[in-house]
């Protein structure tokens, strides 16, 4: 065993702490929403029961939840990975669009390839396009000192509008009545795991990616160096780590991961690219990464939770008439409550200052 018992204990304590914090935040957020539901004149228990049923009620529901989990794992990973290098990638949404665009182009216009090859090519194209879009922000950061938060916000809109232009014009499905492309070739589609659902092997790719990223961060020299840049630029520089190159690299990989979210959405479930097709997966990625404490494995669980909320919300709406948008409120308050974890410390300090 390469890791000492101390390490396991420290890590276990850390995981337990952050997990309990996340669970507390989720509980509190559900409580706040319950009050909202009550005020709206509904029974929160019935609503939450419907939500649970919608997300996990039968294999079809679970399949849909897992299908929804897939892109969220990728965007969550994207944000978490960049954050390990102390970069805030708010641009996962745009990188997702870039990835979707590239993979749909490969899926439609490259023909005559055997299935696995075509899929791999589409995935590679999606990753590359996302990486380029993320890398652009990385380049601006490392070469011109431009804050990545600002640049990625801007790049989001550029990508989204560009895709909108593409699907309405150059790559619109003939004759072009609808704002969408044609379907990708069957050779480029990911095999479906659960029949009659949207669940493709994309979920396995996503989980595999998360495990790979965890390995990359904690078991490779590259990961250690990247985290060093994230925690102390000074120490990194004096240890001979090329800080700028790592920032660029981290943003590129982060963008690539977000690009895969778009890719898997296209070749795994939607098969065609539509105007504004993403319901904010990229922005959800920020919340997912944060809820998962920027830990790739944590991201899987956080993505699953968010997906369950979104899928379950449909059932909740059908049963009770409560709008699905309620789950956005739940998601947002979860994040606020985690941010609010410092409140006890703040309160104690304030009491102390008053006492002094």
């Amino acid at each position, binding site marked *: 065993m390469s890791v000492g018992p101390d390490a396991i204990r420290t890590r276990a304590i850390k995981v337990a702490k952050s997990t309990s914090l996340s669970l507390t935040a989720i509980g509190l957020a559900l409580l706040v929403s319950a009050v909202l539901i009550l005020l709206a004149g509904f029974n929160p228990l019935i609503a939450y029961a419907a939500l649970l049923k919608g997300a996990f009620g039968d294999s079809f529901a679970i399949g849909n939840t897992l299908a929804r989990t897939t892109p969220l794992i990728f965007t969550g990973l994207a944000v978490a990975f960049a954050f390990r290098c102390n970069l805030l990638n708010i641009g996962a949404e745009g990188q997702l669009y870039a990835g979707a665009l590239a993979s749909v182009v490969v899926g439609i216009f490259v023909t005559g390839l055997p299935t696995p090859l075509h899929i791999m090519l589409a995935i590679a194209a999606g990753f590359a396009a996302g990486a380029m879009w993320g890398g652009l922000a990385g380049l601006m950061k490392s070469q011109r000192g431009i804050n990545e938060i600002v640049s990625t916000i801007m790049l989001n809109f550029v990508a989204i509008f560009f895709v909108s232009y593409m699907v309405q014009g150059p790559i619109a499905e003939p004759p072009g009545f609808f704002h969408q492309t044609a379907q990708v070739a069957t050779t480029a589609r990911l095999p479906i795991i659960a029949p009659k659902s949207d669940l493709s092997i994309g979920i396995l790719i996503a989980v595999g990616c998360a495990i790979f990223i965890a390995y990359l961060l904690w078991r490779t*020299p590259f990961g250690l160096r990247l985290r060093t840049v994230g925690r102390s630029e000074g120490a990194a520089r004096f240890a001979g780590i090329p800080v700028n190159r790592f920032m660029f690299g981290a943003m590129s990989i982060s963008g690539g991961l977000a690009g895969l979210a778009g890719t898997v959405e296209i070749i795994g479930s939607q098969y065609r690219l539509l105007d504004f097709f993403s319901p904010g997966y990229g922005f959800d990625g920020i919340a997912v990464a944060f809820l998962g404490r920027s830990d790739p494995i944590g991201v899987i669980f956080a993505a699953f939770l968010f997906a369950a909320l979104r899928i379950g919300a449909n059932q909740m709406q059908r049963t009770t008439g409560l709008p699905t948008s309620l789950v956005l409120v739940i998601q947002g308050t979860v994040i606020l409550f985690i941010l609010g974890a410092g409140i006890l410390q703040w309160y104690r300090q304030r009491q102390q200052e008053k006492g002094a």
Partner: protein
Amino acid sequence: MSLLRMEEITKRFPGVVANDQVDLVLEEGEIHALLGENGSGKSTLMNMLYGIYRPDAGRILLRDKEVQFSSPTDAISAGIGMVHQHFMLVPTMTVTENVILGLKEQKGRWNPLLDTRGAEKRINALAEQYGLDIEPNARVWQLPVGAQQRVEILKSLYRNAEILVLDEPTAVLAPKEVEHLIEVLRNLARSGKSIIFISHKLNEVIQLADRVSVLRNGVLSGQVDVADATASQLAEMMVGRQVETPKKKPRKSGETILTTANLVVKDDRSLIAVDDLTFDLAKGEIFGVAGVDGNGQKELTEAIAGVRSIESGNLEISGLSKSRGKRFREIGHVTEDRHQTGVVLPFSLWENYALKVCGTPPYGNWLNMNTGVMQEQTRAAIDQFSIKATGPDVAMSTLSGGNQQKVVLARELALDPKLLLAAQPTRGLDVGAAEYVHERLLSARDSGMAIMLISTELEEVLALSDRIMVMYEGKSMGLVDASQASREMLGLMMAGVSLENIENGMSQ
């Protein structure tokens, strides 16, 4: 009646007594120096006077009336002004705006517009009165450091300060600027202002102050008239710990590792920081670089370490690899600013230990780190260097400064570097830890390593080095054999007198 009396002031922080029953008396129109080493409690004492901290015991009397300050605002309104070592100025604002920041300088009671013109008039009047050369409309970021300091002084005067506290006012100044500052301070004292200045430089204190209070480890070790004191007396009061002169084995001659010729390096502001240095450094010797902080030592070290580019001249380290990663492993570097550049505080000890070596055998390869080996090595270092830590998995941030430094030293020595740069290796360490670091450096030298020791502590340089170079304004004031060097001689060189001039002076 004294203007200010601080009586039996005591302040404790977790683990240390920063001030232990310290008394300080300040007379009107006096320039009073507060002398002491780094960490002797000077700043803590002044922060209590300025209302940033509150004393745990003791009292402060202004003109025989007891006062209690709970914030700088209280201190300011009581007539106390402070010029911090790191200036408290907003760079993007003008001089006038900085001076009136936080004051209610508006055109009328009901007219909230700033009365900039009125303020400027007063600033100009004050500047003229005390000989402060200032341009009220300039933006602060455009001003040289000396001028920024004058803005700080003016800020206090504008708020009718009677007592002016300056924290290490000369640390950031060029010699020309120091002269100007001294003149200004004398002017102020002559017109009735009282001045306390914090310093750890003897020559300055003797040159400028009327009286001096010396602090050592939080205790007042003496308060004397400067006219009655000699430099060596003051030094004795200040330096509590006698640096144990370790026994040095005679130096074995080894091959030359580092050679520089006419080396020029610029600092972050693109000003020349290292000016035409030529020296060499061989295996098995400790090459001491002495000098007051900010005379180019930092830039020289960084250039050798490979994190700062060279402007002109030659810098050659023999047998150094071409690959960037390898190069950083071949030069060990105990960096000056441990928290910013030496360690990663949230990382575990073994991760810190692995920063440079990860990915090289036997620590793993590019695809896989052998964490087991690295943890073992860290555990071994903990034992070997008697580091107080429960194991390699604890976070660096949980260790004391001395133990952190030991980890850094262990890491850099483990690389078996061709050259070891040790910059201020004992800064902020307690006596025990400092002596330990000294021993380690000497034993590394005895085993044939080439070591460059950069230190502002004269005693340390004298005790450890084989040869000593003194830097002043980026230039070398001379290179002497440690066995022939004396404190006085090095002190003169640190003050900017070249070895040549000293020798000529002696021969005359």
